[in-house]
């Protein structure tokens, strides 16, 4: 018998986790799905006058994206809450599947299934609301997967004039790169909270957010100190546009590699925890 990976057994653990999936997360998803509906109802029921705000698809996409991050953050603790519990986790720990199979199934549901179900649902709800004669104009679904249309539209909406070099710069970020970057972002956020779910016994999500905030503050202090010290900000930069472009490029790359490293570390931590967690 292959004790590392067996497709049959993997199917069983996928089914097992799948049966736990909806009962554990449906309430949280429903609440998050309801937010745009509440905004819609609230806006439609307000007395209609000049100030009635209309929501264009791009701002709605922003809301959906933000909410999808929240979904990613809460998913691990919703779906695998008890797996490291000293009492309740015993069943999970002793379930006859390999660590790799349990790990892959956990990644599959937290990183892939949850955001997809959320986004499909959110876009469907958005489409239904947009079909009604209300404050939602256009369909979010038409632009959701088109990053450049989104950027261009935002520029158009806000009357931002952009010169040729900017357009070229954005075009240089290839669609593939953007997709990889956003997928990687999803993986990073999810893996951080999967790890938090494995190491904390209670208030799993809250503690992890706390740690991230503290780390962010420390990072910013270090960065500002560094910037002040090296007088980067006080320098008179000749070509501001070039500088900004260069900085964006640098940050994009830094994020890209940081995300790869953080995801890898977090996922390895999750795997180790599944394998060695004591009960």
């Amino acid at each position: 018998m292959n004790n590392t990976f067996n497709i049959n057994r993997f199917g069983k653990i996928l089914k097992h986790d799948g049966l736990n999936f909806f009962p554990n997360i449906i309430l949280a998803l429903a609440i998050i799905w309801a937010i745009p509906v509440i905004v819609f109802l609230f806006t439609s029921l307000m007395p209609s006058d000049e100030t009635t705000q209309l929501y264009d698809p791009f701002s709605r996409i922003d809301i959906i994206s933000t909410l999808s991050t929240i979904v990613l953050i809460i998913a691990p603790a919703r779906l695998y809450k008890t797996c490291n519990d000293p009492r309740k986790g015993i069943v999970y720990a002793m379930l006859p599947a390999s660590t790799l199979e349990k790990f892959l199934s956990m990644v599959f549901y937290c990183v892939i299934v949850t955001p997809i179900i959320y986004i499909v649902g959110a876009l469907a709800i958005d489409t239904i609301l947009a079909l009604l004669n209300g404050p939602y104009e256009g369909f979010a679904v038409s632009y959701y997967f088109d990053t450049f249309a989104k950027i261009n539209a935002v520029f158009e909406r806000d009357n931002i004039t952009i010169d040729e070099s900017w357009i070229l710069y954005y075009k240089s970020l290839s669609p593939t790169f953007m997709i990889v970057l956003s997928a990687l972002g999803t993986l990073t956020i999810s893996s951080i909270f999967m790890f938090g779910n494995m190491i904390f016994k209670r208030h799993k999500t809250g503690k992890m957010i706390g740690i991230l905030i503290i780390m962010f503050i420390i990072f910013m202090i270090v960065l500002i100190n560094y910037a002040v010290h090296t007088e980067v900000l006080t320098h008179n930069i000749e070509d501001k546009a070039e500088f900004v472009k260069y900085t964006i490029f640098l940050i994009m790359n830094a994020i890209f590699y940081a995300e790869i490293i953080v995801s890898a570390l977090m996922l390895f931590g999750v795997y180790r925890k599944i394998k060695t967690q004591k009960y």
Partner: protein
Amino acid sequence: MIKINNLDFAYNNTQVFKNISLEFQKGNIYGLLGENGVGKTTLLKIICGLQKPQNGSVSVDGFTPSKRLPEFLQNVFLLPEEVITEDTTPERFIQKIGVFYPRYDFALFNQLMGELEVDLSKKFNELSHGQKKKAWLACALSLQTDYLFLDEPTNGLDIPSKALFRQVISQHCSDESTIIISTHQVKDVENLIDPIVILDRDDVLLNASFAEITEKIYFEYGPERLQNAYYTEMLPGGYINVMPNTEHEESNVNIEALFNAVMKNKETIKNLMK
């Protein structure tokens, strides 16, 4: 077969086992006895791979439990003392986990739920404590694993349920299966457990079958206290004296008296039974 060799185990700074060695043979229902806090639950957890020993080796049919290999896990089940409250019916729960176990039998589950008189329509968290324990027992037995570990299984069961418990356990036992029942309620599992393992703080005092025990130890039921007894206790209508078996006579093991005799004469009986 479960083989434990020179096992050391400690929680942080509390030593639980110090260099213990122990074997559990197939086809038996072991009774794991010991005062509260001597590590009965910990021993079961180590055998299941939920805790890892600091030193020494544990082997279950050649598998190292702490590696948590599926081939090992599909043959063991642990029923913890404090039963877990799942927000689902026992039926749905067993269907969810049963597929992982090669000899899982859903018909047997239904039969056991009937025999143990558990309400099939209720969720775990809607069942009373005793009912919940019985529902978990039905789940555990229907998986038909070679190794089944029951931690204080009769805690919280009413008297008729305790009789039902003995019946379903003896029903489950086969030549291939090993059941270990940890308990301090000896009366509930009398006549069911054989051999008996008695744990003490970081030591094993006894691991012997009834046949081995009665060969060395004689349980004398009589009207008086005997001087050379390991232990004497008053029973209704006389005394029970736990004696060395010098006449090679057969007697009936009284587990409570045996346990007390062992606790009073740890080294003597440990050496006697070696």
